[in-house]
Structure formats: structure tokens, C-alpha cells
């Protein structure tokens, strides 16, 4: 774990991590600051108190939930570092480093069946309800009461775009060129998503730009859902950034949902050890944050992002300890097989894999990087009434749509990874096709 780019003095701050002063770069997610400072364990899991460290860095897992300035269960990967920020780990006693409740994990190696445990055993059953209640839950109540939030901002537009990655951006480009007004919502501080921050891909579009004349782009704006009321449908979102969080409602007759995908976890033994990272988390660390999370990582997975990640890590100075293609049709010459088990106490130290029926290998490594196709973000499309289909070859639910991204829900289009992720170039293509169809619709 090291910083590839030193923190400039003017951006250098310290955050308070359970009484320890940790150096950070102003504005970077505190999960990154802690990682860069060598802190692997940021939380303890809810039931077995297993140690956890950052995994997806995209607010789509639970591994980095911390108490931040007295507020429980915040994603440390989404909290910008600033001087004096108070960070505490949760759900552990006496400390997250040595948590006595981790004994539950060891005492129940086969898992703890909450349905059958002590069911009907007279006294034990009642004691269990009491004990379980006290063990349950993650954080403690927040310290303070927030100030009253501002009423929502409401925007009206012919086309609302959710997501400013390759698909959303390419669509915005087409709409701009055709003079069709739109509102684009992006959770991050900048547009581009995976195209900018994911594993580099051969054939990815060189540039994507949004013409400012037609559209409104809102950064730091997280989509919550596609709702409706008496006046029609709208995207509900929360805008954060520098100001206090505030609801934003975008009313539109047509929607393009390009919310990408979520990090997939491979189900191998101890796959939740600190040091197991989603591939896009690693590319984000290297490309955006200037942090190299491992010197000798095992890179496993399949699809176009596997090669890109290996290249990115190698270029950054790492020496992958293992590259394993776990897909159904591995590339020629690649080592293929499946992952069996991660090893290590408190963090990854080795990985066991099966490379042929009889051959098992245990490889020393300081991280495991899962380069897997993302699982499509189908949720908001389904809110609107779109259907999904399970694609066995990818192992994911993809949103059902025609060639233009048109779904079963009237006026709702989908583009990019939500259709079953492949490459940034294909995501951009699907965004352009959907936008062209939208231009025709608006004109008609």
C-alpha cells in the first residue's frame, strides 16, 4: 500500500482515527486515506464480527461503514477527508482490532442458523432473544440532530439522464448536438465513470464531451428512484457536495437510465478478508487517487477488465503474484481455473486456486483483485416497470431492452452496463443509440 503521488503540502490534513492522527489528502475519501496509511480493517461484520476493509469503494457493499463525526453507518469511501474528522469503527468490543465477539465466527464454523437455534428450548430461547437483541444492529444512535433541510429543488426537462459514465455521456453528446435539452445526474465529482476511472480498455472512446448549450449536468447527485405522483414521473435524487444534502426532483416524460453496475463478489472461502478488492475499486485507487493498494496482488476474474487491470497495476509498479482467468472461455495462453480460498489473519496473505482438476496452488499475495463484469444496476429501471432477464453466460440479471435501449416501460430507456456490462466502447454505443431514438421521439 503506497501513495504513487505524494500529497502536496497545501492539501495535507490529518483525520482522527480512534485517537490516532492519520495523514490524508483534503477531499479524498477517508477510506482511501486509511488504506494509504496502512489500516486494513475499517469495520466488523454484523453477525460474525469478521474483520472488513474497503472492497468496492462505490457505496455498494458494507465493508467500510464507519461512525463519522458522530453519525453511524457512513460509507467511508464516500466521506471526503478534512482536518479533524473523527472516525470510529463500529460493532466491536473492546476494539475493532481485537474484537471478542469475533469468537462467534470461530465457534460456529458452519454458520449460525438463527431459525433453528435454541428453538423451543425453554430457558435458552428467552436468553437468546435478549442476547441476540444486544448483539444485533450496527451503529449507535447519531450524536446530534441535523439542522432542518431545505425543501427539494424541482427541475423539468424533456429527457432526464441518470448516470454520467460512458453511456450517459455519449447520450448527452448526441442530445446536445441535436439541441434536445436534458438534465444529467451524476453521483461522482466528475463525469466519466468507468471510462475515466475503470481499468483501461483498448478501443475505449478517446474523448467524450457534453456540449453545455443544451443540457444541465448535476454532479454529486445520487439517484434514489423513479417515482410518480399526480403530476407524472420523476427521478428523485439527493444532491450533496459542499452544501447540506437536499432532495432534487427531475420531472420528465422520458428517462435514460445509465446507472452502470455494481461490484460482484466471487463466492470463495474468506472472500471478505481485508485486501480483497473489486477491480474497479483498484483502478479508481490507482488512476484517481494515486494509491497503489498492493505490491504483489493476485488478479482473478474474466472479461475485458482482467487484462486492463493487470496492465494498470504493472504500469504502476506492482508485480502481480498471480493472474487467473475464471471465465467460461479463457483467453489463449492464460492461466485458467477457479478460486478456492483466501488466507490471512486480518488481511489477505495468500490465495488458493485450482488450475486443473488435480492441481491446486497456493500463492502468496498482498491483495486479491476481482476483475469481474459488473452486475447491472437494474433497480431504477424496474421501479419504472422495465423487465429483466437472467443471462446465464454472464451470470447476471440484465434489463430487457430493444436495440435502442427501449424497455417495457413507456418512455424509459436503458444504456450501458445495466444491459449486461461489456466494454466502455459498447456502453457509449448503446448510449448514442438510445439518445438518437430519444431525439426522434422528442421531434415526433
Amino acid at each position, binding site marked *: 500500500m503506497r501513495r504513487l503521488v505524494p500529497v502536496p503540502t497545501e492539501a495535507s490534513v490529518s483525520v482522527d482515527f480512534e485517537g490516532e492522527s492519520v495523514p490524508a489528502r483534503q477531499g479524498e475519501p477517508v477510506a482511501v486515506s486509511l488504506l494509504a496509511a496502512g489500516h486494513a480493517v475499517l469495520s466488523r461484520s454484523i453477525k460474525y464480527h469478521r474483520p472488513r476493509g474497503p472492497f468496492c469503494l462505490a457505496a455498494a457493499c458494507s465493508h467500510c461503514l464507519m461512525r463519522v463525526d458522530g453519525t453511524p453507518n457512513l460509507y467511508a469511501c464516500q466521506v471526503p477527508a478534512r482536518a479533524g474528522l473523527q472516525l470510529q469503527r463500529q460493532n466491536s468490543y473492546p476494539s475493532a482490532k481485537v474484537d471478542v465477539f469475533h469468537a462467534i465466527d470461530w465457534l460456529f464454523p458452519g454458520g449460525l442458523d438463527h431459525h433453528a437455534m435454541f428453538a423451543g428450548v425453554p430457558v435458552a430461547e428467552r436468553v437468546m432473544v435478549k442476547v441476540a437483541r444486544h448483539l444485533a444492529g450496527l451503529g449507535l444512535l447519531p450524536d446530534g440532530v441535523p439542522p432542518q433541510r431545505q425543501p427539494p429543488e424541482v427541475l423539468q426537462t424533456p429527457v432526464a439522464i441518470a448516470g454520467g459514465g460512458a453511456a450517459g455521456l455519449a447520450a448527452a453528446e448526441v442530445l446536445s448536438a441535436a439541441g434536445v435539452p436534458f438534465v444529467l445526474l451524476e453521483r461522482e465529482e466528475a463525469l466519466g465513470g468507468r471510462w475515466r476511472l475503470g481499468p483501461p480498455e483498448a478501443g475505449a472512446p478517446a474523448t467524450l464531451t457534453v456540449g453545455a448549450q443544451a443540457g444541465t449536468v448535476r454532479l454529486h447527485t445520487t439517484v434514489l428512484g423513479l417515482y410518480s405522483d*399526480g403530476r407524472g414521473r420523476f427521478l428523485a435524487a439527493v444532491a450533496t457536495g459542499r452544501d447540506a444534502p437536499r*432532495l432534487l426532483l427531475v420531472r420528465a416524460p422520458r428517462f435514460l437510465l445509465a446507472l452502470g453496475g455494481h461490484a460482484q463478489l466471487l463466492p470463495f472461502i474468506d472472500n471478505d478478508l481485508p485486501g480483497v478488492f473489486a477491480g474497479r475499486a483498484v483502478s479508481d485507487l490507482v488512476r484517481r487517487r494515486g494509491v497503489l493498494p498492493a505490491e504483489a496482488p493476485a488478479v482473478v476474474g474474466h472479461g475485458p477488465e482482467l487484462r486492463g487491470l493487470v496492465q494498470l497495476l504493472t504500469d504502476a509498479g506492482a508485480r502481480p503474484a498471480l493472474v487467473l482467468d475464471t471465465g467460461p472461455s479463457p483467453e489463449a495462453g492464460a492461466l485458467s481455473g477457479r478460486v478456492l480460498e483466501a488466507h490471512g489473519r486480518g488481511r489477505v496473505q495468500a490465495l488458493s486456486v485450482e488450475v486443473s482438476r488435480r492441481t491446486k496452488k497456493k500463492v502468496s499475495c498482498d491483495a486479491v483483485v476481482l476483475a469481474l463484469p459488473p*452486475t447491472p444496476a437494474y433497480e431504477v429501471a424496474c421501479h419504472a416497470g422495465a423487465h429483466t432477464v437472467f443471462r446465464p453466460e454472464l451470470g447476471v440479471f440484465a434489463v430487457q431492452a430493444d436495440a435502442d435501449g427501449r424497455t417495457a416501460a413507456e418512455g424509459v430507456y436503458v444504456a450501458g452496463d445495466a444491459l449486461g456490462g461489456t466494454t466502455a466502447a459498447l456502453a457509449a454505443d448503446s448510449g448514442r443509440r438510445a439518445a438518437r431514438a430519444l431525439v426522434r421521439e422528442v421531434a415526433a
Partner: protein
Amino acid sequence: MSKALVCPCEDVTLDDVEGAIAKGFHDVESIKRYTGFGTGICQGKSCLNTVAQVLARTPGVAPAAVLPFTPRPPLEPTELGVLAALQVDEAEAPSPGVPPFLGAPVAALRPEEPVPARADVVIIGGGIMGLALAHNLAKRGCTDVVVLEKDYLCAGASGRNGGGVRMQWGTEANIELAKRSVELMKQFAGEMGINIWLRQGGYLFLAKSQAIAERLERNAKLHNRHGVRTEILSPEAARELVPQLTLKDVALAAYHPEDGVIFPWPFLWGYAHSARKRGVRVETFTHVTGLLRSGGRLAAVQTDRGEIACQTVVLASGAWSPQVAQLAGVALPNQPHRHEILSTEPLKPFLGPLVSLLDSGLYFSQSMRGEIVGGMGDPREPAGLEQGSTLRFLGRFARALTEQLPVLGKVKVLRQWAGCYDVTPDNNPILGRTPGLENLLQMSGFVGHGFMMAPAVAERMAEWMVSGQADDLFSRFNLARFSSGTLEREDMIIG
């Protein structure tokens, strides 16, 4: 260690998922409920597809039957304080909400083999009522029973309620039923081998208006006469129970410490398992398409998997009961009304009782898992079989909740959903024989509290059906009361 995690948020392992599939849970919604996967802070973002991959490998599961669970808004954990700032037009009726309600069962999940050609009893509805009745009938030796459920178990109101259990009611009949239900709930795990996590933290009813305060006082006296030790508390005394409450404008409170909350889902699995073990057929994903009349009786129940000739039909379809009764030409006065509900991030225990403000219909409790689970009635909610979720509800609920408990302002909502109350004109159930159609038995109209009443009602009903001895419950709450009898109104309805 040595665990392969599928859902790290809730610590659900690959073994847990494979175990649930081996137990016969072959649809993602059921696996979600049985294992708890996808119910944590990420709401299934990192685990749903892994579960689908495991299910898709299971012999006998068709690819078309691998479907995702209904994604519940919001997509990201959202602060209650932010939602409370939504400006809601109280004069406007709520919209149907999202996702759009798909009433028809999914054909791909429907079992291929036909239903049995005949049975003594066909129970329409595999919710808590129907399953508890099947269990009680089977226990009494009546095992030639088929339960028909159009969806997965827990799909209806039985799987969508807040799990509240209380003895504080406004009528003698409901107080006695609830008392018996709590007794049965205490024995449930022993008899069924599955935990239901009854936690008796009490119910704390708050009253703002004079009329509601008087109602609570009047009802407390009635409770005391029936051995239910409800106390009337001053706002200060109520604050001792929940120190974080503001108790703004609250006149008084009623508290009964033996009320509580349970975990609803295992009830259904427990009853279903017990009934099946004794020979009852519980048929899920099976839709009733017709009721065949012959003279003054029902001769058969028609389904999308064939016809079942039978002696007795029990209508236990909750909010869908009027629709099903219509198939036999019977008009029921019940009306479905949506009630929305939500759940927050899990917090360490701080809230003992379930708190309800009767003036607005707000209620909230802390589940065994630590989430704040709560809802609130909407006076503008029209009648109808809607189960969608609205932003309006999030706004109204968040405002009402943070007004009573401001410390929850920064607590985040993880998911929202809705279910239907099955509302009758007097807020009491419809039980017993159907006038003019003697072998159609009614078991509906529980107005949002069927879950807690089911153990006791099903026990009485099975006894009445098997023994043939008269029971006041089935004449007092007979359908005929709406045309000829006198109505006794239940006034302790939340929402």
C-alpha cells in the same frame, strides 16, 4: 473463519443459500426472506446475482424462473432528515407508486404438475390465516387439505407487516383473541422448531387530541377488566420509557408492557412446514381462476393447474378476498387499502416499545435486527389493490417520525414497501358461513391486524370446523351482520 460469503452485509454464506434451496425455496424472493441476503445496507447490490447463479445451477429450476427480487426504493441509504423536507400536498391522493403492481402470478414459477383432483378442504390464500388454519386442521386429523397461494409464501400482507403484537384493543373479542395469540406465540418455536423472535417490549400509544386521549382511558379500563394491565401514563412517564421522545402536544399515553413485536416470516414457514408434514398440500404460485357453484354449494375450485372438487372452501385471501368471492357471485363489503412502511439502517438497541401516535396513524418500533420499522396511514389513500411505494410516504413518515424522535434525523432509510389492509365497515373480521353458500367459509377482513390474531382465530376456526360445535365468534362476525345485525366497531386501528 472458513466461510464463503454471498451477502457480506448480513453475513449470509454460500452454505446458507444452498441450504435454503435444499429446503425447497426455489425462488429468489423466498431465498431472500429465508436467508436474509439482500436485506442489508447495500440492498442486494453485491449479492443478488451470486444467489441467482447458485439458483440457476439447481436441477429443476428453469432459466425463466430465475428472477430478481423486487428492488425496493430508495436505491441508496437516505437520511430521514432530508426526506422530511419533502413538501407534500396533503390534499392530493397518493399515486399508485413503484414498482407497478403486477397482480398476475409469474407463469415460469408455476409448478407443472396438476393440483389434486379432490380434497376435503380447499383454503384459498397461503397467508398467515390460511396456513395457520391448515396447521390446526391437520393437528385435529383433518389432513385432506389443499392451500392455494398465488405467489410465494409471505408475498401478501403476512410478509409485509411490521410484526406488531398487542393486547390493547377496543373490543372484548379482540382483547381475548390477542391474549390467546400471544400465548400461542410463546409456544410456537417449541412446537414448530423455528424461531419467531417474540420480544415483549410493550406498545406505547400516544394521544394528542382529547377524543383519542379519552378513548385510550376508556379502553385501558376495559383491558384491566380482562386481565390486560394497560397503564395510562403522563407524557413525562412516557419519556422515561423512551427518553428520546419529544412528546410534542401529547396529552397522555397508554402502555402495556407485554405487547411486543415478532418476526413475521418464520410464522408462515413454520405453519406451512407443520401442515405439509401432516399431509396438507401447500401449493404456491397457483392462481384460483373460478369457483364452481352447484345448487347452494361450491362444488369445486378451478385453478391454472386444474380443478379441485371439494367439500369445503375457506376464503382466506386477505385484501384479495372480495375479488375471489366475486368468482362465486358473493359480494363482500371488504375494501383493500394500501399501507406503506419502511425500514432503516440497523442500530444498536435503544427503543423498547413499539410507539404509535393514534392521531396520525404513525407507528414505529425497533426490530430484533436493530432497524427502525414503521409506517403511517394516509387519509387520502383510495381503496384499491395497490402495493407500490411513493416518495410522498417517505416524506410524510420522515416528517412525523423526526418530529417525535428528532435524534433519528441522520438515520438512513434502507427500503420501503407496502401491503394492503383488508378493511371492513366495522373494522372487525368476516368469519363463519356464507349466507346462501353454506360450504364457503369466510376468514378475512382483519384490517391490518390479522397477523397477530391468526394463531388464536385459526385455532378456534379449526375446532369449530372439525367438532361442529357452535362458537360465538363465527356468528358474531358473520357476513350477515352487515345486512341484519348490529355492528360493534373496533376503534384501536393504527393508520
